[in-house]
């Protein structure tokens, strides 16, 4: 039977852990709010961009004289760039493991393609580096503060490779923020661009030729996809960590309760034992 002191020490250690998990939960909650605000702040632009793109695309589609834009060109998917967005830190439940699983599933589902990885986030990088997977590029520390220009640079590089036909498709794998308790692993193709369709396009006056506008809108659209994915992933990471830490805190609470009960039992047992000793000692002396 462990001694009273041992159990007390155990309880103290669990309490310490609980304090840490509680603090981490609070920090994640605060960061989550900020990340969520940024997701919401980026939405109007994304929505507007999409609408404008639809209308321009419709105008261009009516114009037979111009060929397809290189970012729309479909090719057989032989070389694929897979962009994985994971977190830089652990302790977020299944957040990072899910993204890694997503990549593995992707590879299994696309046996004919040679997949190159572009890894955003330390956890994903560590995993695939250790296993010697073909890594095209890696970016670490982006998610802590998502800056549009940084993300756009990654997107531009991918587009450049696509234009040069080094790669035939670009996919994103990331966690989407659904709610505080739910993240959804998303797999989306960003290149070639799938133009959203609309029934009744507006008849605009075009200051610049539609084809030219499409040429400058498309890269912007792809950049925005990357940016949005990264923002979503950042929010999802904080949400996942918050939930994980909340669970850890309540688990620690349960454990403390159990240990306290156990400790009291041990204490009582030792008191009982002492009494018995005294009583039986007295009985023997009589």
């Amino acid at each position: 039977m462990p001694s009273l002191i041992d159990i007390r020490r155990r309880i103290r250690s669990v309490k310490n852990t609980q304090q840490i998990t509680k603090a981490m939960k609070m920090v994640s909650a605060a960061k989550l709010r900020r990340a969520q605000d940024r997701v919401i702040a980026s939405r109007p632009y994304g929505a507007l961009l999409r609408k404008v793109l639809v209308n321009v695309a419709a105008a261009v589609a009516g114009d037979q004289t111009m060929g397809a834009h290189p970012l729309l060109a479909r090719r057989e998917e032989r070389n694929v760039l897979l962009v994985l967005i994971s977190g830089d830190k652990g302790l977020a439940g299944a957040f990072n493991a899910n993204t890694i699983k997503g990549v593995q599933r992707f590879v299994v589902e696309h046996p004919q393609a040679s997949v190159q990885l572009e890894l955003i986030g330390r956890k994903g990088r560590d995993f695939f580096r250790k296993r010697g997977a073909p890594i095209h590029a890696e970016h670490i520390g982006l998610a802590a503060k998502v800056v549009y220009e940084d993300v756009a640079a990654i997107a531009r590089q991918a587009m450049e490779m696509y234009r040069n036909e080094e790669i035939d498709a670009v996919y994103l794998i990331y966690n989407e923020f659904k709610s505080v308790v739910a993240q959804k692993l998303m797999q989306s193709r960003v290149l070639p661009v799938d133009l959203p369709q609309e029934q009744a396009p507006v008849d605009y006056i075009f200051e610049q030729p539609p084809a030219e506008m499409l040429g400058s809108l498309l890269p912007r659209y792809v950049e925005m996809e990357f940016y949005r994915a990264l923002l979503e992933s950042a929010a999802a990471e904080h949400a996942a960590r918050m939930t994980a830490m909340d669970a850890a805190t309540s688990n620690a609470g349960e454990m403390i309760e159990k240990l306290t009960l156990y400790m009291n039992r041990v204490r009582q047992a030792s008191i009982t034992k002492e009494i018995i000793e005294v009583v039986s000692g007295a009985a023997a002396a009589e």
Partner: protein
Amino acid sequence: MADSFDLEIATPERLLVKEQVNELQIPGKDGYLGILPGHAALLSELGTGFLSYTCGGSKRYLSIHGGFVEVLPGQVRVLANVAEKAEEIDIEHARKDLQQAQEQVMNPALGVDPAVALDAMAAAQARIDAAEKK
């Protein structure tokens, strides 16, 4: 006819302006565009410069650097790559940027792509213009 229309100005990072305005001037790629209520539907790329609009008698300014504008009857949406409200612009910083960009343009030995430097120069100039107007 209504004497005002909806104006939304958004950058990838945030929604900057969402207001009812009476009059709008935007820096199009091929020159400034004036928009009044009831304008026909129009799409244009944005250049670099300052955007101004009147709303309730007061005039506001923003600096704009690249992007798109969509004009619909009763509604204008500006998708700016970079935009700043005049009152938020740090004019000293903009001046410094302008100077740096000018040096880069004048001095090719610095190894900066002249197109990039010119672009930066125009952006800095637009910020100074907008800030001085407020």
